[in-house]
């Protein structure tokens, strides 16, 4: 979805602000924005700010908080212009309502693609500025003075000449009756008090004392708990259930049979899980009953030579290939990946005749609402989604299959029910990052620099179902080919796409770093292979190809310097570099690895330099880089879902391991100061990890790896 970088540049947006009265008296502020989904008329944006007479100012956050710091970041934007301190405000999750809370770039209420700060950078600051202007005007009117002689500070309007002060709350109701200023000048960066400054995350305190409420913590009155098992084979169905033993388990209330799943409802999750284990279930394994990962990989290899669509074409690759013989020809292969967010999938639903209440942590609140409405036959306004904190998203909660399943269970339960997936179900019924294959052909001239670049991407078109209006054009998934052309100055470039979907019945979706994560290994290892043929240092080779990308070159130089690039390492150690230009940001990553005598790989150190434009919260940016790196590292080292006889083999953290503290390398992140419009950071750290490590392994051992997860046990000389 970082392909949105191109989209948003072409969309001219304007923000309008309207105001209103709070139900309890006070000021409501609503920025209205034209968005790509509603280009003709300005889409109403709902109340983003409520200034009550008393108490904390509410900032309504349209983006889900899944660790990436959306509550903090978006609240900071508004608070900066409103002239309030962070402890005077409270972040409130927006209700599910795309007509009011659709993301300006995405056209739906979606939190993904690292676009929260980018999308709200202007509208939330304008909303804050409009509110501040109105609150000052209301106080000035009260005092009979001119607005320009007043100022605002920490939620108080001050008239210095007379030393009079009025709190925002005291004038909020009067402010709401004033005209809304439209052309408000926003602060110059030198006047920022919050943006770019260190501050404690507003969601941190509740997350260290156990009071933070995730989806799994919803506790509506009369709640029952359901453990669920879904047919292990994709697309299979339920044949029969023997449930007499389960019904005898203390606390078990009800066995629910769905066409593709069985749930046990009980007084607590422990009894529900025990009841589920006591069932004897016979499944019809369905059309995928004999499927294996090998079959899927073979099908993808066969698709490599199918007819392709051209996603990017500059110069004349064919002529350049005919003219230059020296070549890098390589195929890069990526596995199926699960997300394994810490909070297993869950959803709580109370389905009644006239209404449906849902408690869940989701990245797609309104899609969840529309789906629940569709299933129950209720109008959407009779469905309430109570969006909670997410115990990790990473793209998993961009799909609402868990909500659908929970509603289907709840329709058979009298009262609210919390459907809790086990870790095993969570891994075996993910919305998987599907297999990906990239073929890269680079031709070098007599100067050993690239003259042509051909990158063929084979994989699914997730955007055809996920965001067809914005990111699926002429049969091409604009996300899956994102950054496939690479950031380098090559006169002739061609990116080709062969659409190849996973088996019917298997849900495939978005995974942290989206398209960029699929393409970074081929692009960054491919250019490394070219540098090796040229006999030029990999950092130097890249530098020569970045004359037109000063921001990328700057992060490369910074990362190289901080990582001691060029300083000799012991034998069996090596450094590798990878660059990324995506999500409106720039990143350079240097990995240092050690490959032991027994070919044991240790990733020792990762240095990352980023330029993400104006930094809203520096701590959050550093956090997100560290987070993205470790998420990418887990996948690079261990991430692989295997299918045997139609079912996923892996089941828990023992057979689908992730990086733990003792495997976590030293990670250092550095931010290049920038006055450019903010870029995304939530996914910026992930794509470069695998290629940086693969390039480092080559430097250490001479082994060129071309498939993931990384396996250094099979030596293959390049």
């Amino acid at each position, binding site marked *: 979805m970082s392909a949105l970088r191109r989209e948003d540049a072409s969309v001219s947006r304007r923000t309008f602000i309207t105001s209103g009265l709070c139900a309890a008296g006070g000021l409501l502020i609503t920025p209205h924005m034209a968005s790509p989904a509603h280009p003709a008329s300005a889409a109403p944006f709902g109340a983003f700010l409520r200034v009550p007479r008393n108490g904390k100012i509410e900032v309504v956050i349209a983006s889900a*908080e899944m*660790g*990436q*710091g959306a509550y903090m970041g978006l609240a900071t934007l508004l608070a900066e212009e409103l002239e309030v301190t962070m402890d005077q405000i409270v972040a409130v999750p927006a209700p599910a309502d795309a007509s009011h809370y659709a993301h300006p770039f995405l056209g739906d209420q979606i939190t993904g693609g690292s676009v929260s700060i980018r999308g709200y950078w202007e509208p939330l600051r304008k909303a804050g500025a409009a509110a501040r202007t109105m609150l000052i005007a209301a106080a000035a009117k009260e005092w009979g003075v001119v607005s320009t002689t007043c100022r605002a500070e920490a939620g108080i309007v001050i008239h210095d000449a007379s030393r009079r002060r009025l709190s925002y709350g005291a004038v909020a109701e009067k402010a709401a009756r004033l005209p809304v200023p439209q052309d408000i000048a926003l602060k110059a960066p030198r006047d920022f008090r919050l943006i770019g400054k260190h501050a404690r*995350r507003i*969601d*941190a*305190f509740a*997350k*260290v*004392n*156990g*009071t*933070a*409420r*995730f989806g*799994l*913590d919803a506790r509506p009155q009369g709640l029952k*708990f359901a453990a669920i098992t879904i047919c292990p084979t994709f697309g299979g169905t339920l044949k029969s259930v023997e449930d007499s033993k389960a019904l005898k*388990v*203390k*606390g078990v209330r009800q066995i629910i049979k769905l066409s593709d799943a069985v749930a046990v409802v009980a*007084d*607590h*999750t*422990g*009894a529900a899980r*025990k009841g589920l284990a006591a069932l004897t279930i016979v499944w019809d394994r369905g059309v995928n009953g004999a499927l294996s990962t090998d079959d899927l990989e073979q099908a993808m290899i066969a698709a490599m030579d199918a007819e392709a669509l051209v996603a990017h074409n500059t110069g004349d690759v064919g002529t350049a290939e005919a003219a230059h013989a020296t070549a890098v020809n390589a195929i890069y292969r990526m596995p199926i990946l699960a997300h394994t*967010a*810490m*909070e*297993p999938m869950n959803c709580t639903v109370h389905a009644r005749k006239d209404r449906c209440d849902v408690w869940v942590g989701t990245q797609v609140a309104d899609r969840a609402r529309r789906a629940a409405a569709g299933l129950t036959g209720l109008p959407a306004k009779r469905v309430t989604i109570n969006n909670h*904190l997410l*115990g*990790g*998203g*990473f793209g998993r909660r961009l799909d609402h299959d868990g909500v659908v399943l929970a509603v289907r269970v709840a329709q058979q339960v009298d009262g609210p029910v919390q459907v*809790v997936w*086990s*870790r095993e179900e969570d891994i075996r019924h993910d919305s998987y990052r599907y297999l990906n294959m990239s073929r890269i052909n680079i031709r070098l001239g007599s100067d050993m620099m690239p003259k042509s670049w051909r990158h063929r991407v084979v994989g699914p078109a997730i955007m055809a179902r996920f965001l067809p209006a914005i990111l699926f054009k002429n049969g091409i998934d604009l996300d899956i080919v994102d950054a496939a052309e690479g950031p380098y100055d090559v006169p002739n470039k061609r990116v080709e796409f062969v659409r190849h979907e996973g088996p019917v019945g298997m849900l495939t979706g978005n995974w942290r770093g989206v398209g960029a994560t699929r393409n970074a290994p081929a692009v960054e290892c491919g250019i490394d292979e070219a540098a090796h043929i040229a006999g030029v240092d990999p950092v130097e080779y890249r530098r020569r190809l970045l004359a037109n990308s000063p921001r990328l070159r700057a992060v490369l130089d910074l990362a190289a310097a901080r990582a001691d690039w060029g300083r000799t390492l012991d034998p069996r150690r090596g450094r590798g570099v990878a660059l990324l230009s995506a999500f409106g940001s720039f990143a350079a990553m240097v990995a240092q690895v050690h490959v032991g005598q027994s070919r044991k790989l240790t990733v020792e150190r990762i240095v990352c330099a980023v330029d993400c434009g104006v930094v809203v919260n520096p*701590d959050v940016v550093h*956090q997100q880089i*560290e*987070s*993205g790196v*470790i*998420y990418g590292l*887990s996948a690079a080292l261990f991430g692989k879902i295997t299918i045997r006889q139609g079912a996923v083999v892996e089941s*828990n*953290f*023992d057979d689908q391991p*992730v*990086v*733990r*503290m*003792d*495997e*976590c390398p*030293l*990670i250092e992140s550095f931010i290049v100061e920038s006055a450019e419009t903010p870029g995304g950071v939530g996914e910026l750290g992930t794509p470069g990890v695998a290629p940086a490590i693969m390039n480092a392994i080559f430097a250490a051992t001479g082994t060129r790896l071309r498939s993931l997860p990384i396996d250094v046990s099979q030596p293959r000389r390049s």
Partner: protein
Amino acid sequence: MAYSIKVNGESHSVDVDGDTPLLWVLRDMLELTGTKFGCGVAQCGACTIHLDGHAVRSCVTSIESAGSGAVTTIESIGSTPIGRRIQEAWLEKEVVQCGYCQSGQIMSAVALLSENPSPTDDDIDAVMSGNICRCGTYPRIRSAIKRAATASSKGR
């Protein structure tokens, strides 16, 4: 049968099977939802609580085996000096992201510092590698534990 259980200094009686994991008793029956479910098989540490001061994984600790032991959860750990220092260090080092695993991380860290007031990196690895964080807060957890250890030694 009914079991009596002491949690955060209060006694409760719950009518469940003896093999019911404490995790579900705490979360679903006592509504102490700060303790989290992550894997169900003692692989991830999200459900870590203290039983008589020792860190245990509540997803595999049955109410029967807990006996008359005193259970401490994240909800009350801040009332102990080490617990409070750990929480403060967590805030100071900006550890949390999604926050889901942090209850378990904090309970493991408090148990570590209770037994070893000045842990080395290896000591921290040995104890904390049982707790998974998918947001990748490990470097900050490590530095927060060291910060809390320093604060502890100054406080003595």
